[in-house]
């Protein structure tokens, strides 16, 4: 066990040695090491978050045909730091009639709900917090915490816009949790495990994105909804409810929400990478070749993972900055009438085909899975088209009354 192939355990081992060398009881030592590990993990996430602020702003700028932050530091790299300083020194307001405790807990909880996700996020084959055998459910649980945080924030601000925003957000999250959970079952079926690492390793041969592209699509959509980003950002629709659930928050409390959202987005990019693009590994068996052994070095893997996560994150941003917001009833209808049934169909299809085709040679198996998804997608699109046509026909019936009035005028 060297530092290079198993850094976490190596450090842990070393620390343990040191602490017990200081005559600490073993129990305390382990506890201490766990605490340290947690802190390190949070710090890492947060630093990454600072980077994300920069990335986000740059990408937005490019999408909106601007330059973005470029004054402070090379390419404005120091800009986020400036932002943070600004937030910290801003006045921290707690409005009258607000439910103080809840109001103050909410942002922390919001950020926590994101950070806990990092406990199961495997940066590399040996760099990860824990390897839960219920990892995927853990994601959902964390999402539940996020929901709670938002509703707490919205309610405790004692502000109708905040409450409305919270209601919207919660209805949004709860309803989009359903397709997400259903879709999370698909990697579970394909990899025969809910452990995130297990899923990653199961994709060393073939990405699940290829075995089930529809699942990837649905997961992406519901993830965006879960994040409450455009086009599902009704919780903070400026034009309607000013800023939604965090309308009353200022300074670093707002900062928590903001940071939380960015990190959340990136984390979901990471989960997309893990669930569908083979996470830190998954070069279609390339890494098994001796020539590419260097791909298995943990740090390389971590870099690979971050790159893939960035890709997912970028897609999310892409959607956010190019798709307009949709109305809430449309959003819920889209979920209940389209996304949930479709995801159920995909789930059943995957479950059946996976059992049936597994006997076939590998390439046929992959082909079958992919083809089936394509077929389902095509059929869905056709159905939608037919439905749309029908609606258009229904709307285009000319109203003679109006016509005559026009003539009268």
């Amino acid at each position: 066990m060297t530092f290079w192939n198993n850094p976490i355990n190596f450090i842990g081992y070393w620390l343990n040695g040191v602490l017990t060398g200081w005559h600490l009881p073993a129990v305390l030592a382990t506890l201490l090491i766990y605490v340290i590990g947690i802190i390190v993990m949070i710090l890492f996430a947060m630093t990454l978050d600072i980077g994300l602020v920069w990335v986000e702003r740059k990408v937005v700028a490019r999408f909106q045909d601007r330059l973005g932050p470029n004054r402070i530091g090379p390419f404005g790299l120091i800009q986020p730091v400036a932002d943070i300083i600004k937030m910290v020194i801003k006045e921290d307001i707690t409005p009258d009639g607000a439910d103080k405790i809840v109001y103050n807990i909410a942002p922390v909880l919001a950020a926590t709900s994101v950070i806990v996700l990092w406990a199961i996020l495997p940066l590399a084959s040996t760099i990860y917090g824990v390897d839960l055998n219920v990892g995927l459910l853990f994601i959902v649980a964390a999402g539940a915490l996020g929901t709670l945080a938002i509703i707490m924030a919205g309610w405790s601000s004692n502000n109708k816009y905040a409450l409305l925003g919270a209601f919207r957000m919660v209805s949004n999250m709860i309803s989009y949790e359903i397709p997400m959970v259903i879709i999370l079952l698909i990697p579970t079926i394909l990899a025969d495990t809910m452990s995130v690492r297990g899923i990653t390793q199961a994709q060393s041969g073939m990405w699940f994105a290829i075995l089930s592209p529809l699942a990837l699509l649905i997961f992406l959509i519901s993830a965006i909804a879960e994040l409450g980003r455009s086009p599902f950002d009704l919780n903070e629709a400026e034009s309607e409810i000013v800023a939604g659930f965090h309308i009353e928050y200022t300074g670093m409390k707002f900062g928590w929400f903001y940071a939380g959202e960015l990190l959340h987005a990136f984390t979901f990019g990471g989960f997309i990478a893990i669930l569908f693009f083979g996470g830190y590994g998954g070069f279609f068996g390339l890494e098994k070749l001796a020539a590419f052994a260097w791909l298995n070095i943990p740090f390389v893997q971590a870099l690979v993972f971050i790159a893939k996560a960035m890709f997912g994150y970028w897609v999310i941003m892409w959607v956010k900055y190019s798709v307009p917001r949709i109305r809430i009833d449309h959003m819920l209808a889209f979920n209940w009438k389209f996304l949930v049934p479709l995801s159920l169909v995909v789930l059943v299809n995957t479950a059946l085909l996976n059992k049936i085709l597994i006997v076939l040679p590998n390439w046929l198996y992959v082909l079958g899975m992919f083809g089936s998804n394509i077929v389902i997608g095509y059929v869905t699109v056709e159905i939608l088209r037919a439905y749309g046509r029908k609606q258009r026909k229904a709307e285009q019936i000319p109203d003679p009354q109006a016509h005559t009035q026009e003539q009268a005028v």
Partner: protein
Amino acid sequence: MTAEQIIFLLTGALVLGAALMVVTVRNLLHAALWLVVSLFGVAVLYAILQANFLAVVQVVVYIGAIAILFIFAVMLTRREAMEKGRQTRNNWWIPVLLGLFILTGLVVLILSVPGVERTATALPSGLDTVQALGMALVSPDAYVLPFEVASVLMLAALVGAVYVATADKK
């Protein structure tokens, strides 16, 4: 006093304290939030008991669904929730006595059971509790029937809730 015991005692204290807050605080929304805390503590207990699945599901179901439902209900019936009067009935002492009585009885009973002081043995190696639970829930010679019945119950509850809660249009 091992680390585990410390954790257990902390969690237990959290659970019980939160539960007490649930039944005593006046602000109903706080009560709901305290419920969340208490249930989270229960989830931790499950984790200590190495029932990962249950721990996570506890969080998903109770905090993600039930607590949210409660909070919604509280908000929808805001007028009541916000009124700052006493939230307990006049003869609140009867339940107190009853509770204490039952508690003592139960504790006496529990402690009188032989072998109740024993500690758990390590899980048999190679036992994937999640997989085993899944098997148990769907294998015909185990609990598939209760499982299915429960799912039917869920469906019925769903329909009923929707029907009851929709404002009757007049």
